[in-house]
């Protein structure tokens, strides 16, 4: 059932034509963001095989279009709330590759100097308000940030990314209802990659589309898009953001996609039926987008330049991380409390 859902979605929303609503500059940005994520995530995987990425890591290989499409539609002040599968969304907001890889490699140049790790990437200056590793926890938190915007009259939107598995935890339903009742400027983005960790989402969910088929319960529109087509994601994001900024409340968008690797680094993903991965790789978001660029008359040389440029950035970041020292131990006891320290007694 799950893979059928995926194929139903890929036939959706294929606009085309020269001089459409997206334009060359934005398309190059969308492409570049996807390539940055692809190259950085692939590098993270390679570094893991070399035992240089420690702990766990959850890659977004194959899901790049979701992160790129939303980030490209966001304003600088918009806020991202991510899950433990958050490298892609962090990179998409412009956080340097070196800071992300440094955190994965637990070096002093890491985004949080090794205090958070792969699952908790956070960069306030980039609007990345945290990556949350307890399933569903960040949906209510995104509601709160949106409440602040509503209360203060700020125009930013809070964007909350999560997987299909999240749709079966209580916090998802509490947050959707809360956001709808309070008409909050928050956009909930379900990346349906067909698997809840190791189990097909269809095996454990009462409806075919785990997010979209629940939307009606909260008075929201049912939205399912092709999450491997960055243009489709970008357009859906724009529509939802405009609605939120206009004070018309939240949206819930289900993006059909597929992760090329396992759930985490420990998972070889042997539970997938034969041929499924290959089928989805034919619909690789970057492959789709290279064709799209060609369709819109963007030259191979521009594409090749972006590819080379990104590879150089990732190579340089890798070398910088390899050369970086481990975190200095003087940060061990800092920032437990707002005074900078950890004192719990006098």
């Amino acid at each position: 059932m799950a893979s059928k859902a995926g194929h139903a979605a890929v036939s959706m929303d294929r606009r085309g034509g020269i001089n459409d609503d997206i334009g060359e500059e934005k398309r190059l940005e969308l492409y570049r963001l996807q390539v940055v994520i692809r190259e950085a995530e692939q590098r993270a995987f390679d570094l893991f095989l070399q035992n240089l990425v420690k702990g766990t890591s959850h890659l977004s290989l194959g899901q790049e279009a979701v992160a790129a499409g939303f980030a490209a539609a966001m304003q600088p002040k918009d806020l991202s709330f991510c899950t433990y599968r958050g490298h892609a969304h962090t990179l998409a907001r412009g956080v340097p590759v070196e800071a992300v890889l440094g955190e994965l490699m637990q070096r002093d140049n890491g985004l949080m100097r090794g205090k958070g790790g792969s699952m908790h990437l956070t960069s306030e200056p980039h609007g990345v308000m945290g990556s949350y590793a307890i399933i569903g926890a960040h949906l209510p938190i995104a509601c709160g940030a949106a409440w602040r915007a509503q209360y203060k009259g700020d125009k930013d939107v809070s964007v909350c990314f999560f997987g299909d598995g999240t749709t079966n935890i209580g916090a998802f339903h509490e947050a959707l209802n809360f956001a709808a009742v309070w008409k909050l400027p928050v956009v909930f983005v379900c990346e349906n990659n067909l698997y809840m960790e190791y189990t097909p989402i269809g095996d454990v969910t009462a409806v075919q589309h785990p997010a979209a088929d629940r939307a009606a319960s909260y008075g929201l529109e049912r939205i399912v898009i092709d999450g491997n087509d960055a243009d489709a994601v970008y357009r859906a994001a724009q529509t939802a953001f405009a609605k939120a900024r206009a004070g018309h409340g939240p949206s819930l968008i289900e993006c059909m996609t597929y992760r090329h690797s396992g759930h985490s680094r420990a998972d070889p993903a042997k539970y997938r039926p034969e041929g499924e991965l290959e089928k989805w790789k034919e619909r690789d978001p970057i492959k789709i987008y290279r064709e799209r660029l060609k369709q819109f008359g963007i030259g191979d040389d521009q594409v090749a330049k972006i590819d080379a440029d990104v590879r150089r950035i990732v190579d340089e970041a890798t070398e910088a991380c390899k050369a970086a020292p481990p975190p200095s131990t003087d940060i061990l006891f800092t920032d437990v409390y707002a005074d900078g320290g950890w004192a719990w007694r006098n």
Partner: protein
Amino acid sequence: MAELTYRDAVARGIAQEMARDPDVVFLGEDVAKAGGVFKATVGLYDQFGPLRVRDTPISEQAILGAAMGAAMTGLKPIAEIMFSDFFAVCFDYIANEFPKSRYMSNGQTKCPLVVRTGNGAGSRFGAQHSQSVENWCMMIPGLKVVAPSTPTDVIGLMAAAVRDPDPVIFFEHKSLYPMKGEVPDGEIVDALGTARTVRTGTDATILALALMVPRALEAAERLKVEHGVDCEVVDVRSLVPLDTQTILGSVGRTHRLFTVEENPRLCGWGAEIVSIVADEAFYDLDGPPVRITTPHIPLPAADILEDMVLPTVERIVERVQRSLGA
């Protein structure tokens, strides 16, 4: 000075802070139009309006998550969890989210919020609406935890909690809501992390919290009058930060330590304090520290049973007297 109930002090404390700072907002179940199920927030909705005082669905995770998101991005929310027992359905925020985000982000994020909650027994509500769970929160690095015992402390510690840049869990004792006390006029601002010696004495130190404070005071009076034992009573008030100096100072003078705890015995707050005293003031002690606690059982509903398990004045008197051989 005016006489005020502990219940009315809650609303006055919140109102004082909301009037001072437009970033202070308040949310919870039945807190706005209904004025709270304990009537502790009556008048706030009328005074501050529907944008700042908001009723929520029965969604404890949404309440605490929303408070956190608002706090991270510039507001100073006060969230009510009606009964502290309900912490168990939203404990992720208390245990994993509020207290860790600053540390995990290497100091990038903030979480200045207050969670206020009705704690404790005496209402005959049974085991899921009567617990004292302050020790659940005391054990989590990154939180601050207070539990006032008087109307004035409710206002002053509420102000301190709202103005504090860290997440503060604010335990109101349900059985203290009708208690009256003299409250000074004007703004009241107290300090977190400060215990208060509410009775001086020379023979023993009794540490108590919330509802156990008036019981400890009454027990001290009876010990003095009936047994000639002069006890010092310290209202611990703040579990985190913990005012160990006041506690160690008192033990240093009286040489005996008793804790009166409503929480069940295992890992109650008194255990931590006894361990600190044993570690740092062992040779000040003239006898073993004694913990007077609720036994390690779920709370029964029936009045006759509930009254048997909470530390009573009689039990405190008996235990101190027996221990001192008076």
